């Protein structure tokens, strides 16, 4: 077992696709299923799953991309910290290309700012240990998948009595935006493909409100193409049989109750914020983590008095509607012209897990544009 190639088996993928087709054909309905996680969005396009799914299945891309939903005001506020004397800013690679008011962190680095890409918050901790005369800030982003790693790094920093290390905390919580989405009056959604790796930490219970209160099925899914196909099949089966339950497709990695040790680390270090802003979705109650008072010395927001200023977003950009599933990326007037992966306007184009970036990279635009019946190719003039 290699845990990758087995789940890319074309025969089994075809079997699953056939089963989905058998279930949906003749029902005369469209099944609108949201894949919550940006990693799922990326996989659906990368492996061309849209092409093997019947037309009755419409995939809607959810808000599960931490880079995409981080508001520009937070990006600017975090990058402002690098202007303090002796600060080394560290962040994941995903953040390096996100534009703020001073350009992207990569641009700022090119102009001499000490911004370093790290693979893990532990790497940021190591940089702090090696540079006792500097202060190292880690620009922390991510859902419950990533937050425990930040928490464990802070626990370690405290044990080692480090005084030159802090976190600019932007960790977010997956369930509140799902409730916010479900409360949107214009939402048209039948079910959810739940995020697999968030669920390795939090388990399946946090999604129970979706079936209990909103009557919609949730299938927690793995990330390989066969995982996604099976999850879509399970979701469709529930809808056809009139069930709405939380099911776990990703049993090899997700326990129903999650990872108790990681959850304990979260509890030790973080506390819920009253409210946190999401790009495209606005302020959502209890949707972000802040650092507990016991760890205040490691909170960059407390050490440096971070100031957030509101940022005007290009009014033509449709990021919010795309995040809510109301529009497809190519419905945005900026898509592929003003807003491209090289020069992203909105964050959905920045991260490879953003819906716009996935569409741009894998050419979905061509698949989904309807060609008018009276359309004719102009004949080339031969000179």
């Amino acid at each position, binding site marked *: 077992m*290699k845990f*990758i190639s087995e789940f890319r088996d074309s025969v089994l993928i075809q079997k699953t696709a*056939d089963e989905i087709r058998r279930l949906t054909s003749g029902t005369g309905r469209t099944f609108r299923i949201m894949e919550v996680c940006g990693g799922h969005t990326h996989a659906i396009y990368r492996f061309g799953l849209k092409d093997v799914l019947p037309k009755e299945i419409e995939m809607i891309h959810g808000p599960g991309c*931490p880079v995409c939903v981080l508001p520009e005001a937070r990006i600017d506020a975090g990058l402002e910290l690098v202007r303090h004397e002796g600060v080394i800013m560290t962040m*994941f690679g995903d953040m390096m290309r996100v534009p703020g008011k001073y350009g992207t962190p990569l641009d700022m680095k090119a102009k001499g700012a000490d911004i370093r890409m790290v693979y*893990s918050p532990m790497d940021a901790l190591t940089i702090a240990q090696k540079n006792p005369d500097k202060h190292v800030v880690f620009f922390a982003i991510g859902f419950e998948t*990533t937050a425990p790693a930040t928490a464990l790094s802070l626990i370690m920093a405290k044990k080692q009595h480090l005084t030159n290390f802090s976190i600019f905390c932007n960790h977010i919580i997956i369930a509140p935006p799902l409730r916010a989405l479900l409360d949107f009056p214009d939402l048209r959604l039948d079910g959810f493909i739940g995020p697999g790796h968030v669920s390795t930490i939090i388990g399946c219970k946090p999604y129970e409100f979706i079936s209990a209160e909103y009557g919609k099925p949730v299938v927690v899914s793995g990330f390989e193409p066969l995982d996604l196909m099976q999850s879509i099949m399970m979701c469709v089966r529930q809808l056809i049989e009139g069930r709405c339950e939380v099911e776990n497709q990703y049993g090899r*990695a997700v326990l129903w109750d999650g*990872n108790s040790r990681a959850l304990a680390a979260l509890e030790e270090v973080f506390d819920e914020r009253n409210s946190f802003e999401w790009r495209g979705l606005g302020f959502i109650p209890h949707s972000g983590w802040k650092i507990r008072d016991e760890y205040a010395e490691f909170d960059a927001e407390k050490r440096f008095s971070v100031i957030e200023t509101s940022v005007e977003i290009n009014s033509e950009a449709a990021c919010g509607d795309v995040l809510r599933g109301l529009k497809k990326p190519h419905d945005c007037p900026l898509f592929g012209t003003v807003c491209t992966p090289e020069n992203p306007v909105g964050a959905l184009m920045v991260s490879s897990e953003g819906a716009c970036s996935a569409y741009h990279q894998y050419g979905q635009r061509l698949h989904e544009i309807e060609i008018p019946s009276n359309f004719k190719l102009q004949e080339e003039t031969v000179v």
Partner: protein
Amino acid sequence: MCLAIPGKIVAMPEQELSFALVEVGGVRRKVILDMLPEPAHLGNWVLVHVGFAMNIVSEKEAEEQLELLRALGEFLDEPLDEPLEEPREEEVATAGGV
């Protein structure tokens, strides 16, 4: 962002109990085990995310899943399509970023 890559524990240095060497797509990495809810052993597969092992991947569950799917619509067996792309090595090695 939430990408986690399965890797196999190939060495567990005794003096550093909270670390293991994990082979991810042919690359060996030092991975922290402090997040695992149960002790890991040599040869276990773990999901690696930002330098931490998040959990032990269950081979039994994976086999059961594949078995279930193999049994699906057996009468429908169709000829092989083109195989989907295999993971590229450099991708497996770097995709675990965040």
